[in-house]
């Protein structure tokens, strides 16, 4: 009914249409940038920057921090794209594989990658400064480089399945699957990768990450607030 209209809002309910007037800023366009890539078959921590956070994304990229993955593999099969959903190429036996042999292969992978770390860091090896950094373990490539694994270890081995924890730099998930395939070849068998899960990306761990059910405004705001201090401290430490 008409009359007695208060100032401000008008609300005229009709059986077919309700119109509501709202105040406040409108989210028309939102700049969202993605951090390091994560492909379709992998899962885990994926860093996004919103609005002004995109500038921090570039700075974090230039810090060249390591990422940690949990990689699950299966012995006995070899496929064309190194994962268990690909076309089968060959089947092999795997009962000769022991934990000791796997650890030996992993130690060698770590050793050659450590050497690659020192070589791609573009520091002249003949200086005293290079020696001091090498002692502290602070030499790392601060520019473009091929994928390097800084640490790798076996979390569990229950034939035919096994799980590895890999710390790496400048890698792609397909490269990690290729590493699993090559470990299989080195052990005179074959292996495919069943799972790639990123559990840490620089300073962001699984505990900071939001689940699918938490993709709402309040949780996102809280998450950004909690991580701000960590990110600032890391950027100051690395980029000076």
């Amino acid at each position: 009914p008409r009359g007695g209209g208060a100032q401000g809002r008008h609300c005229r309910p009709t059986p077919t249409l309700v119109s509501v007037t709202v105040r406040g800023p409108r989210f028309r366009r939102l700049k969202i940038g993605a951090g390091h890539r994560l492909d379709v078959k992998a899962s885990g921590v994926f860093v996004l920057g919103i609005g002004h956070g995109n500038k921090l994304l570039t700075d974090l990229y230039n810090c060249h921090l390591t990422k940690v993955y949990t990689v699950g593999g299966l012995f006995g099969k070899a496929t064309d794209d190194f994962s268990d959903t690909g076309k089968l190429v060959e089947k092999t036996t795997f009962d000769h594989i022991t934990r000791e042999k796997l650890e030996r292969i992993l130690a060698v992978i770590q050793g050659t990658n450590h050497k690659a770390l020192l070589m791609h860091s573009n520091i002249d090896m003949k200086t005293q400064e290079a020696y001091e950094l090498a002692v502290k373990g602070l030499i790392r490539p601060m520019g473009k480089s091929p994928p390097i694994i800084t640490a790798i270890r076996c979390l569990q081995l229950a034939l035919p399945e096994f799980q590895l924890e890999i710390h790496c730099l400048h890698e792609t998930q397909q490269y990690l699957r290729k590493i699993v395939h090559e470990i299989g070849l080195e052990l005179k068998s074959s292996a495919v990768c069943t799972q790639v899960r990123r559990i840490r990306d620089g300073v962001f761990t699984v505990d900071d990450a939001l689940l699918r059910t938490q993709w709402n405004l309040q949780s996102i705001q809280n998450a950004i607030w909690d991580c701000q201090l960590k990110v600032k401290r890391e950027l100051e430490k690395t980029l000076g």
Partner: protein
Amino acid sequence: RGLAKPAGPRSVRQLREAEEATPVFQYAGKAAKRKDRVFVWGFCYSGALGVPSFVKPDVGWKKPRRIQPTPYRLETEEKVGPGAAAVLSRQGTVSTGDPPLSVPVNLGRFLLSALKDGYEYVLEPSPIPLPLEKPQQTRVLQVSCGRAHSLILTDSEGVFTMGNNSYGQCGRKVVEDETYSESHLIHQLKEFDSRVVQVVCGQDHSLFRTKKGTVYACGWGADGQTGLGHYNITSVPTKLRGDIAGVNIIQVSSYGDCCLAVSDEGDVFGWGNSEYLQFASVTETTQVNVPRHLPFKIGKIKEAACGGTGNIVLTEEGNVFVWGYGILGKGPNLTETAVPEMIPPSLFGWSDFNPDIRVAHVRCGLSQFAALTNRGELFVWGKNLRGCLGTGRMEDQYFPWRVTVPGEVVDVACGVDHMVSMVKSFT
């Protein structure tokens, strides 16, 4: 009309059946053993690497190779035994093998050979017949080479020496005007107080360590390296006194004119040349001709190795200490020190992620050092003379650097300009 269906995308059941029907290949059985391999690298023209095609190519497209900068696998017909240790000389490589009768020997230049025809260069591992009484039972335990002579240790027939004897380093009387270049005289030494368990050659002198822990020496002594209290030559192996009299020595090492000995209680004794501050912590003189105890407070010492100008020791905890002159492994600023300096374990791969990596063995070349970890990795540093470090580059290495070898390195021996390693394959 036929009853064949058109080929569409295969269903999950069809894929699973096809997968189960594929044959399973076996590349290695459960009892597959790890194979022993030998890798060599360094200067090729002396023939010390044992690969004739580096010096004289057998196929038209191959070119002679002056330097092999990275590890190269040496293929031998005979199996190199698991207890084999390759010991290198100045320019030659000598390795022990399974057949006790002949010692597969690859001699380089200047190593005046004991072969019938007296070759000047021997480019391939060739057997040397030893005058053994019981050829089927006696086994060759260890071999050592000096500048121009070598010593072969057997388990029951004493020590055989061959080569240059102009200073009595072969343990027999010096014959004037003897020509050594085509001689195949092998002398046998048996007069020691107990069985000899280690033989070491310095440049022109020889050291023998017996089971009782005593050390005998013979050869050139102008720098006091025979440790017998005088600076003359000795042509008969004589027992050493001084600070090691009565001490049970468990390891002796020498390369140039400086010698080190480690006792079972973890003390280190030294004698010989001290021009490069090797013994400057105990004496000002540059020649020490009686064994002196080196009172270093670095812990119980397990192993020691002498290089040309620097020395390296390994303690029980797995720490590595270096002293002397040259590229010692602590950066370009440290060129000489009289007191042992520790090389930080983080350079050998130790970190919070791998806290149980330890150095297991240390070896020395003329101006290079090598360290083996318990994970089977080989680290080298020092002067990169003609590519002997095996890093792939020609520059000197001022701190320990990993050598990529496709296998677990069990032992390594360093010569003047090349290295040989005994490697076990991974699986």
